[in-house]
């Protein structure tokens, strides 16, 4: 029971911190919208062309936008020692990572869902493709949160090379992109592609707490 209380306490603190930084979220979504606009202006108003490439473009831009705020994943809590006192309060680093991934998924990734139908209209996407986009983004963003946790924890002591954390995320999200975009032309294979995506998500939920916690321990030892 005590550990449940502590989990709720941690999430409550995450929500409060998020609420004070709400401008970050809006700027992320604005970045996403503007990059979509830039793409549309660059391509011109060919309806058929926009419809063909729509899902691919939206997914690539979603990926780029969600890597923007990754550096903040653990940085503040690591610098001021909240990770240490939370650990001393009886929570293992693995549990902390899992809660961080959960709150990042809920607070940073899910708000993008609201922007997807609007962006879908810009690209003149049919309804079933917007529906597919929704479905794949819910699963895919969970994978992105896990990847973000891994890359952010690996870069805790890295003060200079800012792009390396995005490289890790982009590299490992290639399968997510392949299956998420390919789902529109899948036909009978729809279910198997969804299952594959869920499988990837489960693998990452399984490994990211351990690998992130190991990276955090390593960073604490060398800080």
């Amino acid at each position, binding site marked *: 029971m005590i550990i449940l*209380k*502590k989990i709720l306490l941690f999430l409550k603190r995450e929500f409060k*911190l998020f609420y004070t*930084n709400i401008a970050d979220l809006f700027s992320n979504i604005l970045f996403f919208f503007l990059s979509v606009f830039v793409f549309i202006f660059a391509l011109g108003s060919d309806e058929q062309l926009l419809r063909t490439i729509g899902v691919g473009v939206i997914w690539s831009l979603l990926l780029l936008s969600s890597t923007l705020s990754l550096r903040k994943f653990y940085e503040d809590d690591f610098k*001021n*020692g909240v990770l240490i*006192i*939370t650990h*001393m309060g009886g929570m293992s680093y693995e549990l902390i990572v899992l809660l961080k991934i959960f709150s990042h998924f809920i607070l940073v990734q899910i708000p993008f869902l609201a922007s997807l139908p609007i962006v879908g209209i810009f690209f003149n996407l049919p309804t079933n493709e917007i529906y597919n986009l929704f479905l794949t983004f819910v699963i895919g963003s969970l994978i992105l949160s896990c990847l973000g946790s891994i890359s952010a924890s690996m870069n805790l002591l890295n003060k200079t090379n800012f792009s390396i954390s995005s490289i890790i995320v982009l590299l490992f999200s290639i399968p997510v992109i392949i299956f998420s975009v390919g789902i529109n032309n899948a036909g009978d294979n729809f279910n198997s592609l969804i299952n594959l995506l869920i499988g990837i998500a489960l693998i990452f939920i399984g490994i990211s707490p351990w690998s992130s916690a190991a990276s955090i321990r390593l960073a604490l*030892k060398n800080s």
Partner: protein
Amino acid sequence: MLLVNDLSFYRNKIKIFENLNISISSKQIIQIKGKNGSGKTTFLKLVLKILEPKTGEIFWEGKNIKKNIFDFYNHTTFIMDHNTSSRKITVEDNINYWKGLSSSKLNTDEIFVLLKTLNLEKYYKSKVIYLSSGEVKKLELIRLILEKKKFWILDEPYNHLDDKSIAILNQTFIDHSNNGGMILFASHFNPNIDNLEILDFN
């Protein structure tokens, strides 16, 4: 009671200290002194198992802390040289977080008495970002009373504090040791505490 047995630590193949044997029992206040780079903070981190020693073991109440780390953490408060309060949320939220983490039973009135002694009660509803560095340090030291643990480990607790706060901190140390507590801290400051024992790292 804490027992440190034959502790050695090397950082990047450079010897920091070797074959350290220390025991700390109830009612003891121990100050670690030493020049810069003599391994004061490193020793505190080794005791808390944030760093791994090259050789040696640490025992808490007769049990190796490697296997009973959360049992040890349950009795320990660690005040770092940097502040663990989150700057963007209010003093109240920070205190509630610390309180929940240590399952503290202190009620709001008692917390207000604490804040009043340290002259912080006017900041209760404001964000930590508006406090001066000395006030943030005082806020951090509230954790000592809040968590009600037996073993206090502090790294440079006297930094940024004014004379009045230093007197309050010294009195808190003396009261805690009279109540059977143990205190281990690293500092360059010479505090005015009667039964202070000094551990020289030079």
